[in-house]
């Protein structure tokens, strides 16, 4: 059973909050996400992100040619266009990984596969700070170390990866009721 927190701040206590805590408590009790499913979600996420970014690049290139900013087939596009592409990439990556996890508890593929990224102690959704740490610091580090960070769940009973340990998070497989 998860750690059930009593409401300690009377000014914020409400029935909705009590029920939210019950849901968070339920997440703490859910089993860690199985490694194959996590891998599947990871691959699907990066695939979807790659498709999204590459096609946004195409669309921006077409728009830039249309308004006359660059010429078709230009091998060396101007600096403003490259900056625009980089800014777009970062914005899309932010929205795709950080905003969705902050707002809904997981990236799109994780949500589709019924996985939730939650705080390991409380079961709450992560705040923006830990999410930045998880997605843009710990994940690249784990990747740079020859994917070792992504292999951690194979050797740990709690199924947490390197980026989970850094951000104090865990990935849970939430129950999916059958028909």
């Amino acid at each position, binding site marked *: 059973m998860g750690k059930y927190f009593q409401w300690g701040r009377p000014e914020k206590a409400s*029935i909705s909050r009590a029920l939210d805590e019950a*849901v968070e408590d339920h997440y703490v009790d859910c089993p860690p996400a199985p490694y194959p499913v996590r891998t*599947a979600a990871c691959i699907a996420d990066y695939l979807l992100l790659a498709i999204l970014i590459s096609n946004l690049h195409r669309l921006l290139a077409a728009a830039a040619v249309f308004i006359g900013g660059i010429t078709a087939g230009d091998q060396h596009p101007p600096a403003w266009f490259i900056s625009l592409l980089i800014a777009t990439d970062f914005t899309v990556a932010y929205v795709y990984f950080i905003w969705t996890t902050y707002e809904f508890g997981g990236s799109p593929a994780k949500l589709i596969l019924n996985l939730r990224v939650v705080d390991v102690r409380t079961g709450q959704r992560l705040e923006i700070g830990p999410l930045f740490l998880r997605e843009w610091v710990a994940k690249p580090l784990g990747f740079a170390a020859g994917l070792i960070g992504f292999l951690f769940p194979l050797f740990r009973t709690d199924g947490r990866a390197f980026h989970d340990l850094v951000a104090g998070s865990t990935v849970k497989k939430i*129950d999916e009721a059958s*028909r």
Partner: protein
Amino acid sequence: MIVFVPISPEVPKYHAPRLWQGLVLVLILSICYLFTESLVIRDSKYLQGVYKLAESQSRGKNLDQYLSLRPLLEVAPSRSNLDLEKLIRGNFIHGSHAHLALNLIGVFAGARICATFLPFYWVAFLFIVGGSIGLWVSILLAFNASPYIPHVGASAGIFTLMGAYYIYNFRFRTRYFYWFPDHRGRIALPTSWFFFFDVLLLELVLSAAQLSPTKFDTVDHVAHVVGFLAGCLGALALRFLQRWPTFIHTRAELVFWRSMDKPLHLDPLMGRFARWIRCLEINPYNDLIKIKLIHLVKKHLDRFDGAQLEMTFRFLTPVFCRRQPKEMALLLKTLLEDKRGVPQPWLQQTPYDVIIHLAQKMASFEGQTVYLYDFLNTYRMALPPEASFQHKLALVIKKVAHLMPHSKSVAPLPGEVGKLRSASAGSNHPPATIEKEPKKSTSGR
């Protein structure tokens, strides 16, 4: 569409599409390819010669003149050579083995997913008409390219079938295959947004890019988008002709619905109830009919007995509760308000997280928290005392009781008081029961 492959609408196994419709179209396309293969090879060789000639001579000079003599233009439509016969033929011509292979997969999937809703002749009709419209519009819009480029392939027709499916299954869910080892690679997702995202969104982006002067690939994305729209319009027209009600999902339900000339019951209300129940027995996945049933029960609650309520709740599965929590919460509130018990088998079979989810929805109703408390308590009483989450549930109820305008106490289960007190003595958790014992159980309210 590659990561998440749509395989069928979310229907029971006996309504799932059969294979033969897709296989017939696959066979037709394969035979047509055999007939045109020699022409396609000849065209490909001719085109290579033209490009070599163009490179050796001054660039672009007389290129259109050479292209106008392409062998494929004898049978395929292009901007310079457009007629109805060639437009229809264009759907059955493919430029290479790879082009054919990809389209065979697509046409098989397209025909298969439409088969739950449409007979084969309508599937074939939509494929040909929608595909031809897609090619035609794409040819008209290809003003940046040479007028001697033929537009061929079944993909516009495939997208027409996808568009038709999108309309027929819009308010329901689609089963996807997703290549990964979970739930045997199957997952059901809402058609309204996910199918659009999966099938059309990328095509919309690419077709916008196709209309610009820069070309990124040789795929006719405009034909795909127009084909999809043609499929949507065709399906809307067909539904109108078929007099297909919006809440009916499969053809089996439609046949049943049309056969209902005589009422199932002398009482019109019970007749309606029996009709909805029968529809759900045919297709227990139809959430729209479940909502209609809930509305009927809610409106005339005093007319339904316990057995009928139990029959209704049999179809209100945990998945439905997750997807339609508001409808469920309103039904539960009405039941508790009228002091009608919530059917015990339903409570016993519903998981804890679903109950909390419904409770969250009930908490959003202004001034109705008393029913929320009753609901949680009723659930607790229905559970066996050894259920693993009894303690958690008791704590939730205690919190809710504290926060209610007139504090209530948590009803202990028979023989539980001493157990809970001794358990709480050794832990940081507060006791599940409030000091004051309740006079009587609240479950019978």
